[in-house]
């Protein structure tokens, strides 16, 4: 049937209409209306997000979307952050950059997460894209300050350089500190995040840079910048609204009062590096940040500090509390479930939580759930695996059940503590909007996994470690896996035989077995694999796998059609 619509509006009009539609979901929907809409849409899509770099190839991407300006790619599975993915697994961005350098000369933004990016690629970026504006490298690795120097020197229109949590090799350059490679007439910096850098920062270069960039709004520095020097920077850039600092051991009263004006303007504060601030200083600090929306802090803040936070920061939306002594057996700070309860009571806009603690109760979780039905991201890490409710010694099934029941918009959940299959029943029943679930040391049987896979309709990412989940639930819910981005299971009970079967039967999935013991077919099929990573893809098995990753043969993939 010929669609009349396509011929009644000129392309330019449709294109203009489409330019108001930004969400991927909506643009995907538009592209299915008819052939001409598909064509117009694909030529006008400017922003592409690839959640798994192996789900699609650069060639396929470029073929469909010929004029992309903003590219976002994610590589390794999330558990790579915790050393569960061996080095050399993959997620190399070089082929993407190479392809983009010729296909997308007008590319403006590149955002990468958990990918390996060499200096060569950084240099290629700096020279290929004349209008390059934004580079965000989140938890990336493979590059050094040389690459950064190239970016600084060549990207005249750079607005944002964000190296959040990446591993950067520091090479002592004879040409001077990489920051000084920003030319004198470069003034467009809006956001700079170099908190992850281990090396020293040339303070003079930094100060000059900050001084000549009137639009600088976000500054995240590393440990090498002490707090009193931070004060100097803040005076040079009073328009800053986001600040993060490293070493803050010099938080003396006079320094604090110098900064107090700046603090009240802050909307985001990251003190997770600052291991030497004690509780009372933290309380003083956060009490001054009435406009704070996001706080990342170490557990030195203690329950008392979180109470103060709850009283002062009514606009708080995101809280992350990290452990100062994650491997200590005994608690070293007075941080309990009470701190989180206080914040849940006092901060009506709080919707995103990451909380490390050593004790929890179902009561507290229920209270938090009732206080904050607007919760969208809830990640609780009780440090000792399988810790029960400290008051009743029961499992925490009910508590987490309350979370999923009351927080109807919950999109992300991380579980911990003592949990049975029951909690997964609750999650499967109530977690209808849940997109990402992290599970560790929980559950009793395959039934747990089955509840999740069969109940959570919007599940995209599932990562599991050290749970007694095996073949049954996985194979029974094989079709579900094609509706998800990825599944990670490590130290579970999934057999190699089941992996092979899945790989054979599901051509749209890559089933990767990661096993450092050697070839899995040298062991019985019933033997559980160390780790498995399953993801959907349109580009077949990848070609850059290291020796410890096994997947189905290319031939077998072709044979199943």
């Amino acid at each position: 049937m010929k669609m009349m619509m396509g011929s009644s509006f000129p392309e330019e009009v449709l294109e203009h209409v489409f330019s108001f539609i930004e969400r991927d979901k909506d643009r995907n929907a538009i592209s299915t209306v008819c052939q001409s809409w598909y064509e117009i849409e694909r030529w006008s899509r400017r922003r592409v997000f690839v959640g798994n770099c192996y789900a699609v190839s650069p060639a396929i991407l470029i073929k469909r979307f010929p004029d992309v300006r903003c590219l976002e790619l994610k590589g390794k599975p999330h558990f790579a952050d915790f050393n569960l993915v061996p080095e050399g697994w993959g997620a190399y961005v070089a082929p993407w950059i190479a392809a983009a350098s010729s296909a997308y000369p007008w590319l403006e933004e590149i955002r990468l997460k958990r990918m390996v990016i060499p200096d060569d690629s950084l240099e290629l970026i700096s020279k290929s894209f004349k209008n390059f504006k934004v580079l965000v490298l989140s938890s990336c690795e493979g590059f050094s300050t040389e690459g950064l120097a190239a970016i600084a020197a060549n990207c005249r229109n750079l607005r944002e350089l964000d190296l959040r949590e990446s591993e950067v090799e520091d090479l002592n350059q004879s040409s001077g500190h990489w920051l000084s490679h920003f030319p004198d007439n470069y003034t467009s910096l809006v956001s700079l995040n170099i908190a992850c850098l281990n090396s020293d920062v040339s303070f003079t270069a930094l100060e000059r840079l900050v001084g000549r960039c009137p639009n600088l709004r976000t500054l995240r520095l590393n440990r090498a910048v002490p707090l009193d020097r931070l004060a100097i920077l803040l005076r040079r850039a009073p328009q800053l609204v986001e600040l993060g600092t490293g070493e803050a051991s010099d938080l003396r009263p006079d320094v604090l009062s110098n900064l107090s004006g700046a603090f009240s303007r802050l909307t985001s504060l990251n003190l997770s590096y600052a291991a030497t601030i004690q509780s009372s200083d933290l309380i003083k600090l956060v009490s001054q940040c009435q406009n704070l929306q996001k706080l990342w802090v170490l557990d030195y803040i203690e329950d008392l500090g979180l109470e103060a936070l709850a009283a002062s920061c009514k606009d708080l939306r995101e809280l992350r509390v990290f452990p100062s002594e994650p491997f200590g057996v005994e608690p070293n700070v007075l941080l309990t479930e009470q701190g989180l309860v206080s914040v849940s009571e006092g901060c009506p806009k709080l919707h995103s939580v990451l909380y490390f603690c050593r004790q929890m109760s179902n009561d507290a979780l229920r209270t938090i759930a009732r206080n904050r039905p607007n919760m969208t991201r809830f990640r609780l890490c009780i440090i000792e695996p399988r810790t029960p409710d400290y008051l009743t010694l029961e499992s925490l099934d009910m508590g987490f059940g309350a979370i999923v029941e009351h927080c109807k918009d919950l999109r992300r959940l991380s579980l911990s503590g003592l949990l049975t299959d029951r909690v997964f029943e609750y999650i499967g029943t109530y977690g209808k909007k849940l997109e990402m679930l992290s599970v560790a040391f929980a559950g009793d049987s395959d039934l747990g996994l089955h509840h999740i896979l069969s109940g959570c309709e919007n599940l995209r990412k599932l990562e599991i470690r050290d749970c007694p989940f095996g073949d049954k639930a996985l194979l029974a819910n094989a079709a579900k896996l094609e509706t998800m981005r990825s599944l990670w299971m490590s130290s579970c009970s999934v057999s190699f035989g089941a992996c092979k079967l899945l790989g054979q039967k599901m051509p749209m999935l890559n089933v990767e077995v990661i096993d450092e013991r050697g070839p899995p077919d040298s062991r019985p099929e019933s033997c559980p694999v160390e780790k498995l990573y399953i993801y959907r893809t349109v580009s077949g098995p990848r070609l850059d796998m290291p020796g410890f990753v096994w997947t189905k043969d290319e031939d077998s993939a072709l044979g199943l059609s």
Partner: protein
Amino acid sequence: MELQLALALPVHNSVKGFDLNDGGIESKEPVASRLWSYGGSLESKKCLKNKRSSEEAFGKMGGGVPQIFPLMVWSGQPNEEDDRKGQNRKTSSIVNKNEVEENHVVGWPPIKSWMKKQLHQQQQQQHHQAGRVKNDGVAERSGGRNSLYVKVKMEGVAIARKIDLRLFHSYQALTNTLISMFDKEQKFDKNGVNYTLTYQDKEGDWLLAGDVPWQTFIESVQRLGILRNGG
């Protein structure tokens, strides 16, 4: 060949047993092993390069000798948490002894490596500047030129606190602060319970605080203890 890949069970069915053969994938089909390949050439070095304690758990991979592995993998190493809780572990977790933190599970708690490094580095810095280091890696006495943090443990209170002794110049000032610090913990009964301040010196001996001049005290104190007097 049409494969029935519908979900095996309706969502509401929470019955324990579910039949694998009821619409899911049949697991009994033989799958030719040549369908599987490994990425790149088999470089045994690569395999073993990043080995964690899988080697400890499963023994070395001898060349070509097939080993029989049980379905449920057991690391053979009793887990400390288990003994304490007396729980029945159904799966193992792989313990990596090569990590900085001994006897801990790989990747747990879930903290990014850079943060672990940061915390470790900063704690090491404190160690190098002063004091000795306890086995658990945390200094009793730490700090730089401008601070001298020592642990304070009050009898009957689970959590120790830390206090910067450089903030004080006399025992009186110190005890005043300690009183307010532990104010919540004090269970004052009607008789009024007294507390005694003690400290551990460089030799490891516990002494009564107040006997030596403040300066001498500062130089040798490793940690503080607050003892209840009989009431």
